[in-house]
């Protein structure tokens, strides 16, 4: 069935198809449509879930933690300040190895108040032990939402589906909605290996001395490493059933490229347009879209970018005092390539607080990189694109 729906509703439909059993949610713009639609679905019986209308995002995640620990499939959605409020309990879900699935609509953080997109909210959760998957289209959002449950429950890690405020959350696109029975075959009911069970009483999360804590962290890291492979299996299974696949990274015309743009989220679609234009003019420009940020697709990126002369990373985020976060991570991933294969990596900070990233913005990044203006330590005027003087 094809429907024209906004990105937020693509999440809701994904959650419905996944048959989430407990939803706990709190409203925040621009996420609210997700949980409104889910409330409708629960109210009219299309989704048989217990829906807890909590008093904060913190309690939304805490309730999901309790429900996931009791062995059921759980979902919540949030954005920006709501995600930041959850920070402590995001760690709890991560190190507690609970397969909670959450959608976050990327929204800039305050002050000043902004409801528009950038990635600082989710990237600030980088080290909470959540798998993070950034989406470009509404179809990808729906597919990734269903896949997220399978991935989460396979590796006992929580998964965050990430989409841009308004550019995706509130933009309508045609979306193919799979048949429920086909999704049921892909994603059976959750059967937790360990759960709160009165017939097998266990304590979870108790005091952990230095003699054992480190191994918990190591297991978490191993699960993250495993998640890369499991994600590929999940995508392969999905492709077999539904004919669509996205990849932890996507390579678009990079084979002969002398400059490769690296993007995430909806900026990717604009960048594809710029690549088309430049290719038409004979410029050897390619694109790598990064969908998976945690676990970081290090090997895939090294494989894709080794030998490329120049890489321009577009960051809709900033780590103040350092730089664009994707750029820094990609530099680290490529650092120990042999010198002859190691690209020059230029990072650009663009589109913060929902500022438009136009083809012109991306063209400017490309041109700067081509001109070799930026390399090594960056001056302020090299990092920022699309700012007023």
């Amino acid at each position, binding site marked *: 069935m094809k429907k024209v729906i906004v990105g937020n509703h693509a999440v809701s439909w994904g959650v419905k198809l996944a048959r989430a*059993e407990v939803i706990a949610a709190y409203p925040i713009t621009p996420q609210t449509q997700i949980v409104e639609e889910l409330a409708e679905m629960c109210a009219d019986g299309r989704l048989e879930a217990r829906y*807890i209308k909590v008093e*904060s995002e913190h309690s939304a995640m805490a*309730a999901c933690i309790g429900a996931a620990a009791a062995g059921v499939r759980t979902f919540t959605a949030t954005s920006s300040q709501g995600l930041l409020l959850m920070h402590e309990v995001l760690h*709890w879900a991560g190190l507690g190895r609970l397969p909670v699935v959450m959608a976050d609509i990327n929204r800039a953080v305050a002050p000043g108040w902004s409801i528009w997109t950038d990635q600082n909210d989710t990237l600030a959760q980088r080290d909470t032990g959540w798998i993070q998957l950034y989406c470009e289209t509404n179809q990808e959002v729906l597919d990734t939402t269903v896949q997220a449950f399978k991935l989460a429950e396979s590796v006992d890690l929580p998964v965050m589906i990430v989409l841009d405020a308004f550019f995706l959350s509130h933009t309508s696109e045609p979306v193919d909605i799979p048949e429920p029975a086909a999704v049921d075959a892909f994603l059976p009911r959750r059967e937790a290996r360990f759960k709160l069970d009165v017939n097998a*009483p266990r304590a979870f999360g108790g005091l952990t001395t230095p003699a054992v804590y480190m191994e918990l962290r190591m297991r978490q890291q191993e699960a993250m490493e495993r998640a890369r492979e499991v994600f590929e299996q999940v995508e392969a299974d999905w492709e077999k059933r539904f004919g669509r696949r996205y990849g932890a990274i996507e390579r678009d015309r990079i084979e002969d490229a002398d400059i490769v743009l690296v993007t995430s989220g909806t900026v990717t679609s604009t960048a594809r347009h710029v690549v088309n234009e430049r290719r038409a003019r004979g410029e050897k420009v390619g694109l790598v879209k990064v969908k998976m940020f945690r676990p970081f697709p290090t090997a895939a990126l090294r494989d894709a970018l080794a030998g490329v002369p120049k890489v321009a990373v577009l960051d809709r985020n900033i780590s103040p005092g350092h730089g664009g976060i994707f750029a820094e991570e990609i530099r680290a991933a490529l650092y120990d390539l042999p010198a002859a294969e190691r690209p020059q990596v230029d990072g650009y900070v663009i589109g913060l607080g929902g500022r438009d990233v136009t083809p012109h913005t991306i063209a400017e990044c490309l041109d700067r990189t081509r001109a070799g203006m930026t390399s090594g330590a960056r001056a302020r005027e090299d990092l920022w694109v699309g700012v007023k003087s």
Partner: protein
Amino acid sequence: MSQIEIKDKVPREELLDSGHLACPGCGAALAMRMVLKVLGEKTIVALPACCWSIIAGPYPQSSLHVPLYHAAFETGAAVASGIKAALLARGDTETMVVAWAGDGGTFDIGLQALSGAAERNEDILYVCYDNEAYMNTGIQRSSATPWGAWTTTTPAGHPETHVKKDILAILAAHRVPYAASTTVAHPEDLIAKVRRAKSVHGTRFLHILAPCPPGWKANDDETISLARMAVRTRVFPLLEVENGERWRFTAEHPGDPVEPYLRRQGRFRHLTDVQIAEIQAQVTARWESLERRVRASEPAPI
């Protein structure tokens, strides 16, 4: 009360093992022991940070014979809400979900989540064992610390200057179906209240006074006598509230003077006679207010 009566009233089943990590004379351990005796094995405990995070035992041990989820400090009621929702989603309507928190996790940092759960009338039992300060972190004041008390953050030169928050009235204002106060020194009252709580649905709240010998600077064999004195002096009245409306005393409160109760605790050692008189006045005023509330909520005579 004869031995036979006690045996009849207190279930023999023990769901708390010896070898737990409570201090000698710990009221919190007694509270858990008695509450679980009534609730039985079909119970799941959500446990935010509190003394019980330690008492329960370190990984991979547990002193409890029921499933236990250690939760973040402010999340007791929310985690319990989630567990209950999960059980219901899988058709388990029987298992009791308990949020078990100290006074810090209830009166202070967990109050928002508790208020949310109570307002939604989540089908959980929330138990606050109240030792009147942050005892696990080393005796810092909470909003359950009584006026005049010494703690490490209210030193004797500047003791606690606020009266204890009226948590039972706060829960009653949410119109939860059942809210009650009891102590570890009143097992018959405590057990009756847990039974009562177990017999109804919705958010049930139990406020259990649990003396803390190290925190109160009292002898560890005085837990029971101090809790009994707290009731006799009307410092800690035993109450139950139905639907936020019907308030009832559940014990005799003869109104003994507060001074002997205070003088047996090192945390009040610095108090002057004037300050003790001030506490007596506060206790008397609150008692009179409670009496008015209880009288006002009595059903009209037929």
